[in-house]
């Protein structure tokens, strides 16, 4: 009997990755079938679900064996063995380990923070959990078909989440309605996925014509190493991937969906949007583009690097003159994702591990910022930095954490952003001095707009109209403190993440 329970545990252990994806999706399905409950109870239920997924993601992250490396928690079942031959494959790599952890954290935060959703609670949590499940799926898939399926699944709920629960803003000279933001986000992301889709089909066709039709990463990688994909083929397919995935990471000039999406989105959705959704693109470039199409990667990386540096500088400069808190953070995300792209474009292990670390760090940081901005907006009903001022007087908790997040964003050592950016700089300077110099300059520009933001809204004399606003509620406090502690923890002890990231990067490097 002992053996039985052991093997049961083993079984459970092996399908952990599957459980992580299935749990939120199943919960969403159950919510749909369940009789109508109050919004609060849906919130409670989905919070419980997200606590569990958080637990599982921590478990997966902790149990990823950095000594063995490779893909762990593999889980493969045949899905279609006729025709185009697809299997449902999951696996945890060194890189996805930290990404899964990121999503676990941000999803939990987003759920907890969304307790004030009154309108159509059920629909909101169904969509939120679907989004979370989709993101987990992307990070865990070891099969191109399912990777793409989950990728689209993660994009799907965004439209309704923004359009129904979002907010429209009038900026005087122009307006950004929630419908516009949602529609643009959806259309741009799906347009980008057109390119990815074409790329995936092209890869599949190559393998099919070769007589080994497959979507599995491992298999594709092996085929790629055997030289199945010619240089010309790799060049154009990688370009598709680069732009397609790049758009999701806010690649210039296809980035405007992101700030406008933020401006329209409700807090929890903004967190997931900036925190994890934008990471999917970079993850795709690193985990798929580089591994399967290394030659194409080598061809296009200079372009990606240049575009990345444009992202960095352009995003920072744009953020400087924005007046809306969410715009500022949105453009700052564009700028920071530029670092990720640059890091990936270095094609050396330091740059890529920096990029992955930056993905994690930016995810946490920007989620934290959106929690706080959401809290401010919720209370003051404006995000205009010319209207808000001296908030630290009335909302000390929110503001102190905002300052922490801001400093993480400008790359203050001791917070996670610094190590990540620093590693990216190191990776870049091996390639080009001037790009590295511009990247460092970009970090200094970040300081300009973050400090401007702090000086305008957080410190200074306080307006009487803002003087009796309440501080963060208990959930906001919990979430923001937790996120800030992650920032500090990773900043002080980056080896926490870097150990597994290094292993993942080693796998990628061996493909090059």
């Amino acid at each position, binding site marked *: 009997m002992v053996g039985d329970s052991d093997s049961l545990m083993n079984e459970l252990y092996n399908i952990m990755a599957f459980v992580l994806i299935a749990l939120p999706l199943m919960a969403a399905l159950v919510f749909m079938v369940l009789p109508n409950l109050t919004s609060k109870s849906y919130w409670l239920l989905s919070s419980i679900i997200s606590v569990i997924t958080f637990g599982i993601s921590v478990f997966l992250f902790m149990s990823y064996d950095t000594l063995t490396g490779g893909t762990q928690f593999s889980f493969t079942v045949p899905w279609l063995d006729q025709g185009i031959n697809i299997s449902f494959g999951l696996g945890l790599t060194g890189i996805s380990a930290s990404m899964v952890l990121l999503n676990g954290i941000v999803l939990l935060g987003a759920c907890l923070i969304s307790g004030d959703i009154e309108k159509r609670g059920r629909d909101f949590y169904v969509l939120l959990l679907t989004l979370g499940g989709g993101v987990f799926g992307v990070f865990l898939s070891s099969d191109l078909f399912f990777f793409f399926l989950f990728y689209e699944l993660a994009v799907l709920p965004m439209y309704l989440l923004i359009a129904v629960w979002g907010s429209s803003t009038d900026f005087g000279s122009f307006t950004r309605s929630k419908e516009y933001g949602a529609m643009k986000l959806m259309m741009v992301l799906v347009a980008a996925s057109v390119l990815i889709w074409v790329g995936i089909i092209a890869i599949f066709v190559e393998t099919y014509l070769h007589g080994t039709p497959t979507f599995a990463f491992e298999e594709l990688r092996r085929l790629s190493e055997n030289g199945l994909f010619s240089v010309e083929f790799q060049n154009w397919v990688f370009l598709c991937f680069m732009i397609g995935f790049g758009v999701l990471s806010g690649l210039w000039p296809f980035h405007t*969906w992101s700030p406008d999406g933020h401006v329209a989105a409700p807090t929890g959705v903004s967190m997931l949007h900036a925190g994890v959704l934008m990471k999917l693109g970079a993850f795709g470039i690193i985990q798929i583009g580089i591994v399967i199409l290394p030659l194409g990667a080598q061809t296009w990386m200079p372009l990606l690097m240049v575009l990345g540096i444009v992202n960095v500088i352009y995003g920072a400069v744009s953020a400087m*003159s924005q007046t809306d808190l969410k715009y500022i953070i949105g453009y700052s995300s564009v700028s920071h994702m530029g670092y990720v792209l640059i890091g990936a474009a270095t094609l050396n*292990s330091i740059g890529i591990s920096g990029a992955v670390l930056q993905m994690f760090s930016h995810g946490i940081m920007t989620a934290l910022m959106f929690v706080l901005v959401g809290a401010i907006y919720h209370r003051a009903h404006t995000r205009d930095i010319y209207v808000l001022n001296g908030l630290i007087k009335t909302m000390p908790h929110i503001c102190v954490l905002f300052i922490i997040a801001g400093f993480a964003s400008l790359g*203050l050592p*001791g917070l996670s952003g610094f190590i990540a950016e620093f*590693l990216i700089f190191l990776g870049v300077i091996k390639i080009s001095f001037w790009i590295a110099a511009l990247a460092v300059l970009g970090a200094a520009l970040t300081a*300009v707009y973050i*400090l401007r933001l702090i000086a305008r809204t957080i410190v*200074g004399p306080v307006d009487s109209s803002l003087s009796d606003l309440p501080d963060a509620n208990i959930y906001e406090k919990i979430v923001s403190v937790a996120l800030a502690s992650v920032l500090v923890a990773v900043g002080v002890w980056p080896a926490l993440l870097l150990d597994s990231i*290094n292993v993942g990067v080693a796998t990628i490097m061996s493909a090059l």
Partner: protein
Amino acid sequence: MQYFWLIPVISFIAFIITSLIGNKILKQAWIFPMLAIVLGLGIYCFGLTEYLQSRFDLEHCFRSSVTGMVGCNYSVEWFTAGVRGADSVNSFLGFTVDPLSLSVAGLAIFVALMVQIYSIGYMKDDPRFAWYYSVQALFISSMILLALSDNFLLLYVAWELVGLCSYLLIGFWYEKPEAKEAAKKAFTVTRLGDVGLLIGILLIWIEVGSFNMSDLFTQVGSGEIASWTIFSISGLLFLGAMGKSAQFPFHVWLPDAMEGPTPVSALIHAATMVAAGVYLVARAYPLFVQSEAMMIIVSCVGLITAIGAALICCVSVDLKRALAYSTISHLGLMMLSLGAFGYTAAILHLLAHGFSKALLFLGSGNIMHSIDDLNINRMGGLKSVLPATTILFCIGALSLAGIPLLSGFWSKDEVIVSIVHNRNIVFAISSMVLVFLSGFYMIRLIIVPFFGSPNRDYSHAHKLPFVMLAPMGVLAVVVVLFGWIALYMPGAPASFGTFLFYSHPKNFHLEPDIAIITLVITLLSFGFGYLIYVKRFSIFQNMRIKARLIIEIVENKYYIDELYQILVDKLVLPAAGLVALFDRILVNDVGINGPGYVTRTVGSIIRHHITGRIYVYLALMTTGMIVLGIIWLGIVIL
């Protein structure tokens, strides 16, 4: 000595505790930081003793072949990124104990302790008393880390953290618009310099493959690195140093930084943090000396800064700002000294200046505390109101003016000697001018507020508590006595120069001719000041009117702030606005909305072929058939 890492850690813990529970124990919030720093001082003293006694036979200690000093290194791995063994970056948490780090760390701990004691009195009525102490603790933690770190990455970490503390403390009274602007300015300007520092560190890594300082110096020493690279690396590092040490043209932040509480100015913006730039150059000295051009640049920047700031100091009417310019001037002097191969002199001056300037700032804090004003023209005759402060302030000021036997005298003399020996006559004469100017502004700052006739009613002046005067007294004692280590350094063969040196120990020797010349110049400047401010000679008043233009330029700080402001207002912000507009109009409305709009338009145009008339449909079908037929024929023929 191997427990030195505890000093920053204890302070950091104090920071965390105080920031978490500080508000609950508001008036007692100083306890933990104070405890931490006392413990730190204890550890430091033990370590120092251990170092002085047994540095030659400890396991971790060895003599650096480049600097010749004995350094003790302790490190653990921090993180590794990339593929281990192949293409990776390893980073260590390591500290090094050598005379340089011991000196700077000692200065930091000691002054910090004094300032913290002083602050108990000075800050006691502030509602953010606890916050003040917790940031102080963080500052000490990071400052010690800065002084001790053995690699550039860790140094950069600490470098930024002290910048953060400076930011937080300048903006301590953040309700004041000036304070928040000053904080922003300080951080932004130093951050610009840090761009250089960071790129420099990256280049170092590219060249050396490690961040470790001694690795770099070994490679530099063995001549493996091209001179151009050395020049660029040292230049980039120097950019960081310029930012932190407020060297021209990055000096603009320091005067504004005086918006912070006065004890903060004393600790951070006079004694320790601003000296970090000098410390960095001294740290990387093996690198700098390899590049003659860089050394000249360092001297020039130092000289320009020193003279420019000294001139402004001569006309500044705000006591703290005047002191700030004096600080800039002295930092310039240190840079000048470093550039003139006066390594030991610069560090000695760093220490002497640190103690003296801390004393001066605390003195100005006393004035602030009692009469709540800093405009020296509205003071006068303070000596009768604040007698103790007057004496202490005079000690500090005279020390910096270079009056013999006080610590400033020894260090300044040492600096001048190295300038005269290693640089040409222009530098020598300029440094004499500098001596004159510093004597002049110091005597001005003594005469105008403290002596002469009172310009206001002092009846409401607050009394000074003992807790504020006591640390000043201690500092004054140090200021008086400290300079003697120039002649005899305990634990070292002889003078400070045999303890802290570059490449080979050298004894301090008083060069009587130079000493006499500087002394004469200083006294001359005193006399000059006496004539102007006490006797009020009309000839000077006339001169003042005639040289109106020049004085105005100097009073307005050469319009450099305005220039920067114009640059930001007329160039950077409009450019940013333009980019944002470009982003919205072109990238978004045309680039992203455009295709959607085009699709819609095309859709609404082609929909018109569905006219609703059957015969049109049928005609359409027939035409379609014919068109397809033509295409088909084309395909067949081709």
